[in-house]
């Protein structure tokens, strides 16, 4: 369970998160939508402790992320995250990309790590690309590789930050399919996305961010058909 309690976060003078309260249960799929600069990416990087917060608390399975005593490197094993920008490690093959963390962080042996990696790569449809360097992959394949890389750590939670928005339109589908597959398997996920159909069809709840505030959160039916907040209405009408 991820619990976010009254979180404030600024970059210098710029307030980016202004009191966020949110709980994501085990097995839940949450989609987060909102305008550019509304703080969605920042929230994700706060959840896995890549960014410090100014006040409030984030608890992951009861562990306070920003407590001094927390071993962040250990905590992060539980939380997979995939970003909008492609960030394959270009000097490692696809297989090595995926085995790196299990081997170095979890101390797994090479055969064991590779077994897991191959399984994950097959799950995302990249079984045949194991020996290839990421430079040879399309954007969509790179994103799927990043997902496999995160999954190889057997995380309890997966965070996705607009993983399709840097992709050419024809490649978006293959990545979304991968996300759907994960959701079907019962992974707990927070997906920042601009793909409304994905938010509508796959998620359990949809949250709308506006200028650092979570303006609205509701199951997709209600969210899309009867949005409460005027900003949500404006946002949705702009999209259609």
């Amino acid at each position, binding site marked *: 369970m991820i619990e976010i309690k009254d979180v404030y976060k600024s970059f210098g003078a710029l307030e980016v998160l202004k009191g966020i309260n949110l709980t994501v249960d085990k097995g839940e799929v949450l989609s987060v939508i909102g305008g550019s600069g509304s703080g969605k990416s920042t929230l994700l*990087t706060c959840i*896995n402790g*890549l960014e410090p917060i100014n006040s409030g608390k984030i608890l992951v399975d009861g562990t306070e992320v920003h407590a001094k005593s927390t071993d962040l*490197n*250990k905590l*992060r*094993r539980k*939380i*997979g*995250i995939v*970003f909008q*920008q*492609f*960030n394959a*490690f*270009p*000097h490692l093959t696809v297989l090595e990309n995926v085995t*790196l*963390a299990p081997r*170095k*962080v979890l101390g797994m042996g090479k055969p064991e790590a590779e077994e897991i990696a191959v399984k994950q790569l097959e799950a995302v449809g990249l079984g045949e690309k194991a020996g290839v*360097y990421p*430079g040879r992959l399309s954007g969509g394949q790179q994103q799927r590789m*990043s997902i496999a*890389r*995160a999954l190889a*750590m057997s995380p309890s939670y997966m965070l996705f930050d607009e993983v399709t928005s840097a992709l050419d339109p024809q490649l978006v589908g293959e990545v979304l399919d991968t996300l759907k597959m994960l959701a079907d398997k019962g992974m707990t996920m927070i997906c920042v996305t601009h793909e409304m159909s994905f938010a509508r069809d796959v998620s359990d709840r949809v949250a709308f961010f506006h200028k650092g505030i979570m303006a609205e959160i509701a199951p997709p039916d209600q969210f899309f058909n009867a949005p409460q907040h005027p900003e949500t209405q404006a946002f949705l009408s702009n999209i259609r």
Partner: protein
Amino acid sequence: MFHTSMSWADVIFLAQGAWMTILVTVISVFLGTIFGIFFGVLRYQVGPWWGAPVTFVLDIFRSIPLLIQLVLVNAFLGIVLRLQISGFTVACGVLTFYTAAYCSEIVRGGIEAVPFTTRRASRSLGLTWLQDMRYIVGPLATRVALPSWIGLALGVMKDSALVYVVQVTELLKSTQILITRLQEPLFLLTIGGLFYFVISFPIARLGGYLEKRWSND
């Protein structure tokens, strides 16, 4: 083509000078690179503000003639502190910091060339700072930095011709000593120059090749 009165003993004498050049270069480049990496990482890690003192000191090595650095350090250690330090040690010491000064720039540039998003991804997987440095930043920065580093190493080899001022008889000094005896300046200088060229040229080409290859992928 040349008539020379150079003897076998002179050839050996020159070879000793060449060996000294290589020895001084290898030691200085090796130690200088280690320090350079250390200072480079440090400067990157603490940021320009806190890194300023280190930057300032290292910058001095790049802003005054090597000849003066050698004379000054020699004079300071010996005359002022009255330490009994050999010229060889002074030469290696000064060249080490000289190398480190340039190397730290190269290292910092290399690290900065690693995209922030790549590093964020590795930390998100639970890699520690050190693991990130070792498995991700290190290899990627090396590709960016290696061609410049090769240039630096060759530069240090050529600049090591100046350590004669602290009584180290390296190649060019050996050449000059032989010129004193044999009075065949053009011939001897050509030999000396050729030696540097033969070492430097292929390695420089290799550097250029690596740069081209790695900038393509």
